[in-house]
């Protein structure tokens, strides 16, 4: 059953299996294990980023396609939900319409970009995605009458997903309200999308992508139309990224250029893929979990550490919470040094 759900792609390392199991349990029961607004928010973010990073890895790790437009696809899904909820009014139908429209639009745009640029060398595709993504970001901030510009959009999601909707008192420290339902919507949506991606990469389609990544001429010489496969991968990846964006928009009840379109998110995605391990869906789980946790809690940990070493020379300054980005950078360099194939690659090697 589990083997089937995971499409036969098992972790292939005991340590990795244990870590993945722990992450799964932590996310599945996050509202009860770690009650509190901030920790549940972090868990929801991890869910969304796992899908976003996994969809990026379908392109980069499996297809060998470098794209800088992934945040744009993510943003399209988020803005899809925001715009439909703003214009169609609060409701499940608006949410569904927005998500599907966002995913379709993202896939269509990916198809166009792919068709025009995947025939040529990889670097051109990367450049074109960068250009299109920048253009879309500018467009979103300029068309303020539609998109709310830099301020973004705040909208209402179905009442059943808001804290105002209560269906009981607290249970194990978690409030039984719409926010809990919203979390489980995000969690189950992310889980479903992740399993779908796992199925895609382990299908014959995924194998051909891996063959193309290794040597496109050989794949072509075996009889596969490389451009068609690459374009297909880009479209699936874009649609899944957009759906991740929709989940994020449902969770946040707000979208803005900084939250869903900024280039910082693109860099985060790249870091997560590299830290977790390219070319393996499980790398997305590890990378997203590590980086989101670091972004949310490193400052706090450093604050505590800084206070603990108070009175000693230099150390309190080094550990000042304001220096958290420096330490994130150090962690990144160290992880590349010790895990050049990502955490998952390293763990699988030790088997």
């Amino acid at each position, binding site marked *: 059953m589990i083997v089937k759900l995971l499409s036969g792609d098992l972790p292939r390392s005991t340590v990795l299996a244990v870590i993945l199991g722990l992450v799964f349990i932590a996310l599945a029961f996050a509202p009860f294990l770690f009650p509190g607004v901030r920790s549940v928010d972090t868990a929801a973010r991890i869910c969304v980023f796992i899908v976003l990073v996994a969809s990026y890895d379908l392109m980069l790790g499996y297809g060998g396609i470098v794209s800088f437009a992934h945040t744009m696809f993510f943003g399209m899904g988020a803005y899809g939900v925001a715009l439909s909820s703003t214009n169609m009014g609060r409701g499940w139908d608006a949410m569904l319409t927005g998500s599907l429209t966002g995913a379709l639009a993202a896939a269509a745009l990916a198809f166009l970009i792919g068709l025009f640029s995947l025939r040529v060398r990889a670097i051109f595709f990367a450049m074109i995605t960068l250009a299109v993504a920048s253009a879309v970001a500018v467009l979103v901030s300029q068309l303020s009458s539609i998109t709310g510009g830099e301020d973004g959009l705040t909208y209402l999601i179905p009442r059943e997903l808001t804290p105002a909707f209560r269906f009981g008192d607290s249970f194990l420290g978690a409030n039984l309200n719409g926010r809990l339902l919203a979390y489980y919507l995000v969690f189950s949506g992310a889980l479903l999308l992740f399993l779908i991606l796992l199925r895609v990469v382990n299908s014959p389609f995924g194998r051909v992508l891996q063959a193309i990544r290794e040597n496109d001429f*050989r794949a072509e010489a*075996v009889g596969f139309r490389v451009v068609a496969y690459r374009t297909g991968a880009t479209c699936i990846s874009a649609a899944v990224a957009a759906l991740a964006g929709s989940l994020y928009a449902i969770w946040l009840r707000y979208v803005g250029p900084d939250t869903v379109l900024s280039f910082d998110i693109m860099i985060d995605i790249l870091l997560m893929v590299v830290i977790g391990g390219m070319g393996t869906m499980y790398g997305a789980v590890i990378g997203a979990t590590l980086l989101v946790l670091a972004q949310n809690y490193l400052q706090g940990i450093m604050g505590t550490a800084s206070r603990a070493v108070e009175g000693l020379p230099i150390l309190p300054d080094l550990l000042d919470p304001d220096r958290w980005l420096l330490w994130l950078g150090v962690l990144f360099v160290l992880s590349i040094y010790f895990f050049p194939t990502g955490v998952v690659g390293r763990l699988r090697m030790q088997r």
Partner: protein
Amino acid sequence: MSDPILTLAGVHTNIAQYHILQGVDLVVPRAQVTMLLGRNGVGKTTTLRTVMGHWRASGGTITLDGMDITQLPTSAIARMGVGYVPENMGIFSDLTVEENMVLAACRGKPDPARLDWLFTVFPPLKTFWRGQAGTLSGGQKQMLSIARAMIEERRLYLIDEPTKGLAPAIIATMARALRELKDQGSSLLLVEQNFAVARALGDAAVVMDDGRVIWAGEMAELARDAGLQERLMGLNVQAEG
């Protein structure tokens, strides 16, 4: 020589600023093994790659089974039934042996009987069926590379240096496999530096130099004439009595 499977007429190929093939005329007879011979760097590999459409011919025509394939994309040429084995063990090392083989079967699933035959020809493939292709030894990779082309009956096999860098025992396995393919009545165009293998397998021979075909004829004729070999390829081997 009637009804050839593959014909190249005045084929030119340019790679960047280099004019590699300078009017190649070549005929591959049906159901025979044609050896493509010549010194290093005379355009043998480029000829195979041009037939496969990897390098686009800048002049001339390439005809497969009566059909002009000069402008066709590589994937279409492969799907027309050309099995291509690149030089240097061209396998997909991230995939398993099984996945490598299944990918190469254009019709979806490999034919079990043919697979069994391939397992008898190349026993290591059965042993490492579910193993990662990248972990195979050099000889095993080359076996996989050739077996991948042989997984289906093809109209034509283009094989680039199948014995390069292999141990003698494995060269013997390769030669046996190619002979079996020949005995089935397949058409082969083989680039081969190992003259002993070429002599043993070839029906016809084509010798290239400087991007052109300089000699074409029976392999037996070339094998007999040491002077001819010396003149064409700079070879200095014992000619057959």
